[in-house]
Structure formats: structure tokens, C-alpha cells
């Protein structure tokens, strides 16, 4: 404390304090909006030996919560009828196996490779149907209408995931994740299976072609340039205003301090101030 008191009146102290405050706010912001991520690749196929391999993997890694017959338990839902698409999404994005029980299963690097994921998916699908993993053609955005995708995205997705796919908060600590790292197939699977709190958008109410349009909108928006070079989280006027306010006001405060700062060395010299 004495160290601070002794130096508080130095001319540079004001600048340092303002700078420190700006850096602190900036770091806080970066911590709040920090983004994690992972990716997974695509593929398809199924056979009977694959189902056997999938059952082995399921028994060792999944059955402690979901039960030996995938019937579910007090802490985990039944996977009968969940379908291959749900497995590919949950395991492929690293959400499953679950690291810890919480409001939201966090995305992390996948534990299994793609072949193992397909094996588990085939096993779960063999238990009782459910949506299949979408084909390459279903998730291709070639020829898709991003304009129609935008209107569907705004009506069905933007309220949780933000109009630019930046994600957002839900109740009790749950959140809608950002769509910045999701692959086309993962986006499709999420709509098809409704992971966690997300509603299901099945192929009857939202046909395959419309899902492709939505994916086209998400990927096209993702690749657009950020004006000024900074995305600021792409959440719109909130962060833009915050940065303009903090940065702009901070710069004005520094400039005002510089312009009006007294010149100490001359004051002690031959010319004194006015009483």
C-alpha cells in the first residue's frame, strides 16, 4: 500500500491506472467469451461385426450410466430408439462419454476414433431404430439456397443460437453452443436428434432440403469477413457498443490527461503559477 501511496502522484500513474483498467476489462471479456472447439470427420456404413465391436465399446464406456441394455438409469436417458445419428453427434463432438455431470455436456476432443464411433452407432441403432447418420449427399450444401436457410434459421434456430450462430444462454446454466466449429453433418444430426435441451426438427416437419439450406446459411455466414477485422463474438451491438465505449472513452480520457497535465519541471523553475 505504501508503495502505491508513494507513487500515486507521479504523472504516469494516471495513465497506468487507466491502461490497467482497460486491460483488466479486456481480459475479463476474453475469458467470458472464450471459445472451445473440436471437429470430427464424416463417413458411413454398418455391418454385424461392427455391431459386436460397438457393443464391446458400449459395455466398457457407456453402460455405467446408460445401463448394460442401454435402458437408461436415473442419471442417463434410455438409448433404445435414440438412433445412430444421436451417437455420432454426441460421441463425435466429444460430449459423450460425459466428463462430469453438469448443466450442459461440454464439447471436447472426441475420445473414440471415427471407426469406433460408427461401431457404437451401429450397436445403438440395432437396439431399435432411430434416425440414421445423414448421408454425404444430405449434408452437402452444393446448390443449397442460403436465403431460404436464413429465413428458416431466423424462425427456428436464431432465438437460441443467435442470428450469426454465436450461441447464447438458456436457463439454469444450460446454453446453446456456438455453431462456429460444427461440421455440416453435426448440424444436421443436431436438428434430427435434438441433443440436450434442443428441440427435435425431424425430416417430416423440416425436410432434408430445408436442413441443407440452413447448413448453407450457417457455413456462409461463418465465412463472411468481419468489418474492421474483429468479430467481437458476433453478438451484435452489445459487444460493439462495449468496445466503442471502453476503447473510445478510454482514449478520450488519456488524451484529456495528456493535454491538461501540468509540466512539473518548468513549474519549479523561474516562472511560477498564479497564486
Amino acid at each position, binding site marked *: 500500500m505504501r508503495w502505491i501511496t508513494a507513487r500515486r502522484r507521479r504523472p504516469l500513474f494516471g495513465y497506468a491506472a487507466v491502461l490497467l483498467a482497460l486491460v483488466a476489462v479486456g481480459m475479463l471479456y476474453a475469458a467470458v467469451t472464450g471459445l472451445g472447439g473440436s471437429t470430427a470427420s464424416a463417413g458411413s456404413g454398418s455391418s454385424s461385426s461392427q455391431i459386436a465391436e460397438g457393443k464391446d465399446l458400449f459395455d466398457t464406456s457407456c453402460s455405467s450410466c446408460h445401463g448394460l441394455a442401454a435402458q437408461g438409469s436415473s442419471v442417463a436417458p434410455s438409448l433404445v430408439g435414440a438412433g445412430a445419428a444421436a451417437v455420432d453427434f454426441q460421441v463425435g463432438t466429444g460430449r459423450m462419454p460425459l466428463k462430469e455431470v453438469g448443466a450442459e455436456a461440454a464439447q471436447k476432443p472426441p475420445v473414440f476414433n471415427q471407426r469406433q464411433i460408427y461401431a457404437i452407432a451401429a450397436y445403438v441403432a440395432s437396439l431399435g431404430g432411430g434416425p440414421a447418420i445423414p448421408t454425404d449427399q444430405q449434408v452437402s450444401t452444393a446448390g443449397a439456397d442460403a436465403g431460404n436457410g436464413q429465413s428458416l434459421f431466423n424462425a427456428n434456430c436464431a432465438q437460441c443460437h443467435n442470428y450469426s450462430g454465436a450461441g*447464447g444462454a438458456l436457463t439454469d446454466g444450460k446454453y446453446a453452443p456456438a455453431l462456429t466449429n460444427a461440421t455440416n453433418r453435426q448440424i444436421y444430426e443436431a436438428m434430427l436428434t*435434438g441433443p440436450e435441451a434442443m428441440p427435435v426438427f425431424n425430416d417430416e416437419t423440416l425436410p432434408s432440403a430445408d436442413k441443407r439450406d440452413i447448413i448453407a446459411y450457417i457455413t456462409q455466414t461463418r465465412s463472411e469477413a468481419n468489418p474492421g477485422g474483429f468479430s467481437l463474438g458476433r453478438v451484435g451491438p452489445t459487444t460493439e457498443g462495449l468496445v466503442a465505449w471502453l476503447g473510445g472513452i478510454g482514449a478520450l480520457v488519456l488524451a484529456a490527461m495528456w493535454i491538461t497535465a501540468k509540466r512539473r519541471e518548468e513549474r519549479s523553475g523561474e516562472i511560477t503559477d498564479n497564486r
Partner: protein
Amino acid sequence: MSDNDRDNDRGLEDTPAERQPPHRVIGTPPPAPGILTDPERGDGDDGRKGTTPYGPGEAEAPELAEAPELEELPAENPNPASAKNWERVAATLFIVSALASVGFIAAYVGLEVDGDTKGNVVVATLRSNLALGSAMSLAFLAIGIGMVIWVRNIMPPVELAEERHPMASPEEDRQAFAETIIEGAEASQITKRPLLRRTLIAATLPAALAPLVLLRGLGPLPKGSLRTTVWKKGTRLLVYGTNRPITPAAFDSPGGMITVVPEGYQDNDEALAKATAIIIKMEPGQLQIPTRYNDGADGARTLLNSMNWTVDNIVAYSKICTHLGCPAALYEQTTQRILCPCHQSTFQANTGATVIFGPAPRPLPQLPIATNAQGYLVAQSDFQEPVGPSFWERG
């Protein structure tokens, strides 16, 4: 007349500020040295006393209010070597500013944004804006920084204090003004001719009221239109965006939620602003809609929620939040909650969209649905209460 005027006259004369030297601004405290050195101040009198010595003693007051003696500005900086260096810095900044201004012109001429631009027009506009903005900022900033350096480091260091000039007009001007007003009032005979005075006042009243009538220009009254929507018995539910009717068999995934619009109005934004709804498919057993009636001020009880208004574990609610009318459609299928993204109003969807959190004053209205002969989802009727935010006459 004269009674009032005499009062004003005396008021002017009696104001303490009036008795003081004309250099003081009315409403500002007297010069600090005057208060401090005034021997009569603070002797328990009414405070006005403190200022009275200036009245008769005109001689001492002007001296106090006079600006301090002007200090001669030194012509030379005490440190010529440092001033020389700073002069170079400032001059460099001015040259930088000039170059930046030239750059601004070059960017404007060089980076054209039109149909011929190769590539994306939006990107070209962004690039042009960036170049123009950077050049202009640099031009102005360099001039400003150069000027401040000039003042701070090249001009001789001296601090000056400038006294505020008196803002009041001279005494004779104010006297003349007051006389003019009084003469005018007498010459107009406004106090002697009450007929003229009263008709003049009467003439201004309608003019003042006229703007109130302009409020009518804000549009027709909504009348009953806030109470009803375009849903009616038999209107099919279309999925918003794809405009396809839905069967319960197609909307069969528990946890499903989709926005629906009334058939025939899918492109009518004015109708959709009130009529847009969401349908939610739940697991068997999850849906527990209570039978709820409104209070019915006139005695008639209207059904507001009913399990009979659902089809096959599918329930329909208005998408318009009852707080401020935002689209409330953040549906969490794990907790069956509907959230409004604007102010976090939270509705429990499986028990009649009752409010469990947030500022919304009432549940989302439930749309009675059924299936028609072809098996499509249709409305049984309109919403049974007004959708959206409250309004005065809603009751």
C-alpha cells in the same frame, strides 16, 4: 396596473445584486477576497448585510472585481534545445497529416465501389471505408497531437488565469429597458381595456389546444383487433417457412417444436404478428394441461386452457410473449420450458405455459387444436384470450 408595476420596480431596486457594482454577475457569489476580508460578514445578520458595504462604497468594489494585472508572456522558451527537438516532432506530424489527407483523396479516387468492381461489392465497400476512415483519422489526429505538442513543449511555459467578465448589462441599459416595458404597458392600455385583454387570451387557447387534435394522425384506434387473430375453426396449421400442413404422424418425435402459421396467411406479416404460434410434441404423460377459466368480469367464464385442446401429446401456444411481444420460442425439451429471449420470461410448456420466471404477467395463450378429416392439424377456434402484451382495455 400600477400596484404590480410598483412591486416590480421596488423588486429591482431592492435586489442585493442590484446594489453591488455592475461587474458582478447576478447569481454568482461575490469575489472571494471580499467575503474573506469583509469585517461585517457573519455577525448574525440576515446575510444581505455582508454585501451592503459595496453599495455605498462604490470605490472599493471595482478594484476587487478587476482582473489581476496581466503578466507579460515570455517570448522565449527557457529550454531552446528541447523546443527545437519538439518543433521537429510537431512539424513531422503536420507533414504526416498532409500526407494522410492526400492519401484520403487517393483512396477516394482509387478505391471505387461500383458495379465494375471485381469481386464482392460489399467487401470493396468495407475496404474503401477502412482506407477512408484510417486516412482521415490519421490526418486529424496528427494535426491535433502536433498542436498539443506545440503548446506544451514549444511555447514558453506559463499559466494564466483569466477572470470571468461581468455578464450583466450596464445599469442605465437595464433602467431604460424597464422604462420601455412600463411605457409600453401604459400605452397599450392593456389593464384599462379588459375586453381586449380577455379576447386576446381567448384567442390563444384554441391555438394551444390544436396540437392535441394532431394526435389523431397517429393512426386509427385498434378497436377490437387486438383481441382476435385470423385463426378460426378448421384453419390448417402450416410449418412456417416450408408452408406445409402437418399431421400428428409426421410430427412424431418427442421434444419436437416448430413454428406454425395459419393457412392462407403465411405471407401476411400483419396477420402473423398476432397469429404466429408454436407446436410442441411431448413424451406421453408429460403433458398435464390444467383446465383453466378466466375470471370473467361480466360473469361469463371463458375456457383458457384445456387438455381437450391438444392432439396426441401435441400442444400449441402463441409465439408472442405476453410481456412485450417478442417471439418466445427458446424451447428446452429437457425441462419443457419456453423462454423469451428479450427479458428471460420463462413458461412451463407442459402445464399450460404458466409463467415460472421473468416479467411476463400471464401464460402464453393456448391455441385449441384438433385434426381434420384428412388427418391434418387444424385449429378448433381462435385463441380464447388476447395474445401478446397487455393493453389498457384488456381487463
